[in-house]
Structures are given as C-alpha cells and as structure tokens.
C-alpha cells in the first residue's frame, strides 16, 4: 500500500443538503430529483415489499437527522453491475419520528446468503458510517453465515425485519439494550 486511507468524519446534521437536496428544501436543485428516490425502476420484476422503521439513539430518542442508504441484489440474485437492476436507494428519515419507508422487491438468496438488504447509516454523532443488514422473517435464514455467527438470539433478532400487516418493520438502535448488530464491512 502506498497511500493512507482517508479518515471518515461525521456527516453532520446537514447531510441532506448534499445528498437529498430536495428533502432539505433546495428547490429545483438537480431538477428537483434526489438520487436514490427509487430502489428499482417500476418495471423490475420480483415480489414487491415495503419496509418501514425508525432509528433510535442510546436513550431511545429518535435520530431525526439520520440518512440511510440501501443496497441489494434483485430478484434473480444479480447486483446492478452484474447486469441486475439498480438496487440502491437513499432515505432521509423524517424530522419528527425518525421514520423511513422503502418500497422495493425481495432480493434473492445468493448461495448461503439469505435474502437481505445492506444498510449504511450516517448522522450527526456517527463518526464512521455504520453498516448493517435487513433480513426477513420467514425466509430461509438458517444457513446465512452472518446470522449463524451471532449466538445471542436478542442480538440476532436486531437484523430480522418482522412482517407487520402489509409491510415489514425494521428499526435501528445505535446503542442500548436493543443495539443493532453492526458489521465490519
């Protein structure tokens, strides 16, 4: 190695100006279209699902300035650069409840990897963007190498979205009793 990797710094509370300018109120920046508003184009085939959730700090308070990014394979198990569909989206959580809502298609299992969506979390107070994964209750999760490496059932459960009526629910806890499992990606 000849170069030192650049250090991370917090995204700060105003990350939306740079990443979701329409959400931040910058009228007509980039034609009024924020990148990552849709995970896939509407003609992508697969089982449509919706995921919603909230993000909390160690006191259980909503992290209202967070930005989340999602990256996944499509229903045939392909990532975008392998000829699959886009599979990337980004969300600013709402300013009151720190909630998000994502419409997507269920990703395929790839080898032993159970269907999952990769998530990246940034916010004020997060020095290094945090990686986690959304798995789905009811899918074939038994042999997934990440899930099987977690012994504590409470910890493991933090990675599994639970069906809640029409949608899945997946909350993120940065700290505390229900702290989400974060990955060394």
């Amino acid at each position: 190695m000849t170069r030192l990797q650049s250090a991370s710094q917090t995204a700060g509370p105003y990350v939306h100006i740079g990443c979701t300018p329409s959400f931040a109120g910058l009228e007509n920046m980039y034609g009024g279209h924020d990148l990552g508003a849709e995970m896939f184009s509407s003609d992508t085939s697969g089982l449509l699902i919706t995921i919603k959730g909230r993000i909390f700090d160690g006191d259980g308070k909503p992290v209202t300035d967070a930005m989340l990014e999602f990256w996944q394979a499509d229903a045939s198990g392909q990532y975008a650069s392998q000829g699959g569909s886009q599979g990337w989206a980004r969300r600013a959580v709402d300013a009151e409840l720190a909630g998000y809502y994502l419409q997507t298609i269920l990703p395929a299992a790839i080898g032993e990897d159970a269907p999952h969506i990769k998530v990246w979390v940034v916010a004020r107070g997060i020095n290094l963007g945090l990686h986690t994964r959304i798995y789905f209750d009811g899918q074939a999760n038994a042999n997934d190498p990440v899930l099987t490496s977690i012994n504590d059932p409470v910890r493991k459960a933090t990675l599994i979205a639970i069906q809640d009526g029409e949608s899945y629910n997946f909350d993120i806890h940065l700290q505390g009793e229900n702290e989400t499992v974060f990955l060394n990606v």
Partner: protein
Amino acid sequence: MIKEKPFNRLDMSLQPQALTPEYRSSRLRSPMHKLLSFTPGQGELLGPNFGHDVINPNDNDLIINYACPGEAAIGEQIMVHGYMLDENARPVSNSLLEFWQANAGGRYRHNKDGYLAPLDPNFGGCGRTITDGDGYYSLRTIRPGPYPWPNGGNDWRPAHIHFSCFGTGWAQRLITQMYFEGDPHIPLCPIVQTIANPTAIDRLTARLDMAHTVPMNFRAFRFDIILRGQGSTLFENKLEGN
C-alpha cells in the same frame, strides 16, 4: 467471472473511534458492541454506479448552480481539485462525489441551522461530480466560513467542505470533511479531533495550490481522497516471504 479480492479493512489507526466523548453527539450514537466481522461477498465488492448522464454541466460549480441567472454567490472564489485514488494509488474513476458546505458567512441553507449569519440568496451549498478516468475531480465554490455549534462550550467548526464518496464497491462508501491549510480551529475542533492520528488529520487538510490558482480570478486548493484498496499488503508480504 474474475474473482476479486476483498477490500482492505478500515485502518483504525487512521480512523476515528465511534465513541469520542469530547464530541458530545457521539455519546448516545455510538454502538457499544464490537463490529461483527464476516467474510464479504459480491455485494460488498460491487456498488451502485452513477453514469455521467446524471450530472448536469454546472453541478460542480457552487458559485452559480443555485444562483439567479447572471448572478453569483458571495465570497472568496476558490477551486478545489484533486484525485480520488485507492490505497494502492490506483485511480477511482467514474465515481460519484457529492459535496455540501456552509456559505461565506458560515450559514447552511437548512431549516435546522439557526446561526445568525445571513443566507446568501444565490448560494445553495451543494454540488456533485463524477471522477474522470484518472480519478480526477474539481469543483468551483466559495470558501465556507467557520461557524459555531452547540457542543457544551465555545466550539467553532474550522471552515470545511463535506464530501460523500462512493468508490466502486459498497465497502468503500465514505463521508468525510475537507479542511483548509492553516486554519487555527483545526486543533481546537472536537469533531476534527475524533481522529487521534495527526497524519490522518493532515490528509484531510487541503493545500493552497498556486500552480492552479488563476491570477485575478480564483485560488486553487488541492485535496486528494484515498479509498480502501483491494488486495492487502499482508497478501503481498506473504508472496515476498515465499
């Protein structure tokens, strides 16, 4: 398919820890458990691609990309430029970079920013570009002002530009900040000082670049971004040892 090597791990001798109590917001927003290590797969090696077609011609010119036609943002006009490379000094080409910053007075165009400095009607504060085949990028902007922030004391951020970098693989995703050479707030700032390593801070500090400064027009600052590379030195050392 070519089997690619995984990305090198984060070098925690250069990166900030999650919990850095002097930066108060980190206290309740830092995981207490160790990050879970696992064997990365295709999904970590690959990442979203953004074609040059998502970029409009003035997206990287913050002086005019939000301004009324014929007008311009107020402040010191600068160019920031450099290369996005990986740890092996290979260019990270065709990769999206996004930037955002306060205006010349240190005020963000954001409803949560209540600092008394005025908004500039001609300054939005965001831009983006895609690196070229050599990993080169540039942007034109006004030099941002320092600003105060609530952290429990008399805390002021050094002038800075936030950078969001994608790289080519999901594991390379990075958000960081660029500082300006000689800013006396750099050693005082609890956010900068979340990085314990002075060399790592130095690498986030842009240098005045007189060679690219245009007389009677703008000053240039040079800022390179280094993303994680593929194929560890461990592997190379092993080869040498064999």
